[in-house]
């Protein structure tokens, strides 16, 4: 795990994103931010707040409500020498520009035989738990991870949020930084310095000896809670924060499972067809002889995200569901 080298301070996830973006705007003259209400309002989630005053209106651009044009702006500007930071307010709205993402952004370099370089960073906000109902709560990262040509990172902590934003914006490829709503207020140590969290490297956030929980985004924190509970059942669970789902740090995951012999994958996205299927399939393929139990999975049930608080509470994956799934799989 990367360590803060100096000035350890505890700041929020949302403030960490701001710091990451600020670092890039300072560092890269050709970087700018474009999206709905990113400049004047500093994003409805607040993570660009203050940057307009700091960098001026030639670096942050409020756009019309036109996701296709916003993503197209990123593609065209990146292909011609800029380093756009594109904001898609809610991840649900990425559906509006999946053509630009899939057929242009992800493929242009390949189709052009390597002649185009597309350093586009896309920030977008996923996740439920805030009673925002079916169209403002989705986790659609599995779509993106299935697309050759893009990278997809999902920070769970303030430290990773800052470091991954910086790494994404320095990367010469399209990188989606999939943020999480319920994480916005999470606090953690974040150095003031500018640093990268390398894309494609997972992180062992809790070491353990006989169970591996592979967690995506905010589920990392639920997994840690679950691990604490599992300790009472005699399980010493290791928790891995995948951080990047494309590329995926398969090696680290397999190393852990070879040690622990059992694994569970958890994400907030709908379980069926989620990235957990890919991870579980890889684990059983590459660590088959090491497995003492089937790779378990926890994800959202097969329904849209309901509005009603009681239903949404039932819907959301959490520590209790992880523990229940572990117990079921291990029959303990």
């Amino acid at each position: 795990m990367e360590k803060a080298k100096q000035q350890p301070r505890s700041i929020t996830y949302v403030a960490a994103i701001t710091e990451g973006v600020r670092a890039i705007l300072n560092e890269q003259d050709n970087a700018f931010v474009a999206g709905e209400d990113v400049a004047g309002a500093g994003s409805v989630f607040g993570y660009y707040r203050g940057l307009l005053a700091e960098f001026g209106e030639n670096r942050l651009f409020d756009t019309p409500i036109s996701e296709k044009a916003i993503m197209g702006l990123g593609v065209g500007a990146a292909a011609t020498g800029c380093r756009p930071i594109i904001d898609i307010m809610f991840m649900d709205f990425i559906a509006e520009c999946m053509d630009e993402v899939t057929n242009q952004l992800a493929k242009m370099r390949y189709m052009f035989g390597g002649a185009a370089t597309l350093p586009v960073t896309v920030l977008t906000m996923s996740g439920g738990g805030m009673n925002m109902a079916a169209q403002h709560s989705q986790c659609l990262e599995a779509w993106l991870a299935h697309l050759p040509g893009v990278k997809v990172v999902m920070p769970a902590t303030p430290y990773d949020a800052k470091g991954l934003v910086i790494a994404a914006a320095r990367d010469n490829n399209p990188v989606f930084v999939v943020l999480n709503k319920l994480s916005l207020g999470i606090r953690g140590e974040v150095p003031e310095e500018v640093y990268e969290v390398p894309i494609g490297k997972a992180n062992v956030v809790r070491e353990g000896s006989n169970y591996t929980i592979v967690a995506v985004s905010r589920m990392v924190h639920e997994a840690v809670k679950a691990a604490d509970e599992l300790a009472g059942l005699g399980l010493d669970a290791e928790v891995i924060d995948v951080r990047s789902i494309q590329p995926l740090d398969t090696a680290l995951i397999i190393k852990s499972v070879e040690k622990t012999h059992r694994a569970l994958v958890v994400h907030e996205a709908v379980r069926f067809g989620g990235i957990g299927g890919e991870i579980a399939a890889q684990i059983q393929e590459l660590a088959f002889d090491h497995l003492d139990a089937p790779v378990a999975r926890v994800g959202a049930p097969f329904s849209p995200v309901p509005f009603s608080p009681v239903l949404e509470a039932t819907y959301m994956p959490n520590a209790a569901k992880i523990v229940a799934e572990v117990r079921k799989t291990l029959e303990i």
Partner: protein
Amino acid sequence: MARQPVRRARTNGTKSEAKSATRSATKGATKSTAESTTRGTAKRPANTAAKSPAKSSKKGRARSPARRTAKSRSAAETGTRSATSGPSDRVLQELHLRMARIRKFEEAAGGLMEDGKIPGALHLYVGQEAVASGIMQHLSDEDQITSTHRGHGHLIAKGGAFPEMFAELFGKASGYCKGKGGSMHISNMSLGMLGANGIVGGGPPIAMGAAFSNKFRGTDRVAVCFFGDGASNEGSFHEAANMASLYKLPCIFVCENNGYGEYTAQENHQAIRDVADRAAGYGMPGVVVDGMDVMAVYEAAGEAIDRARRGDGPSLLEAKTYRFFDHVGMRGMGLTYRSDEELEAWRRKDALLSFEAMLLDMGVMTKRKLTSFYKKLDEELAAAIQFAEASPFPDPSELLEDVYSVA
């Protein structure tokens, strides 16, 4: 640039140049009837006998004005179609009723949200009441509408009942969507309300599809989509408008231009002043109307809806309006993107208050009636909120129901 209230309806979409290569059928926007101010004159059409829907129903709540079937539409239509006579008292009272119901509901709902009693986010319709009301006055339950994230007003004007609406906002099982939709997806199929929509620009393609269906099935029903100035920049609006015009569908595109998309002023999201300017590009009439004047909206909507029912195709109606509260909730996030002066200028044009003043003037309404009217409305609201609060939440077992039709 301060946003100023507008005064009069205008018809856009016509052009000065003779355009030889252009089919005349797709040009020459209809003349807007919205210019005629009918207030004050208010000649009564013959068939005004219809019972006042503002009367309390058995359950003690004011009967929802839109709850009429196609058969009872004639009075409203007469009111619209005659150029020389104004609308009937019944129409005037219904327009008022719709506006007042929206205003009161929204203020109550906004308060409940700010107090943390309603979960999630509410986008309030206060300020824009004249738009939904003037348009819905022409529609029956069989006509469809699609709404926006700011959808309560549309549903109320279409006949939505307070108890089921509050229950939905609270996330209760007795809500219109069993608590699964909430404010942003509130809907009622039997009222022809095809949903509020959390996706900006989500409505137009769906309304266009409903209009297609109306025509395909051989009915004379129309579909109306409401959308904002901000939404007019979404590709979905463009595609739906083009297709509706191509197929001459009974679809009315109603742009509620309140000058802002979230915290971004219109001048910072499009290089035009009138969204109605886009109509010509689809070969349909584009009309600008004062959205703070319910009679102007009512007249312009009547024209567009009649045209659609006649089979002459869609129209784009732009209502200049304003939201009195913030983008979300009442107080919002505390951003200062609108000036106090601007807000004041628009509040002076308050559609509900000015219409009430006119009704009092005309003698269609008296101070006393108004007082008792609001008293009854307050009681109805209180009862509805009580109903919603007392209603149970859905059972967790209902989570996986309604994903698929099993029939």
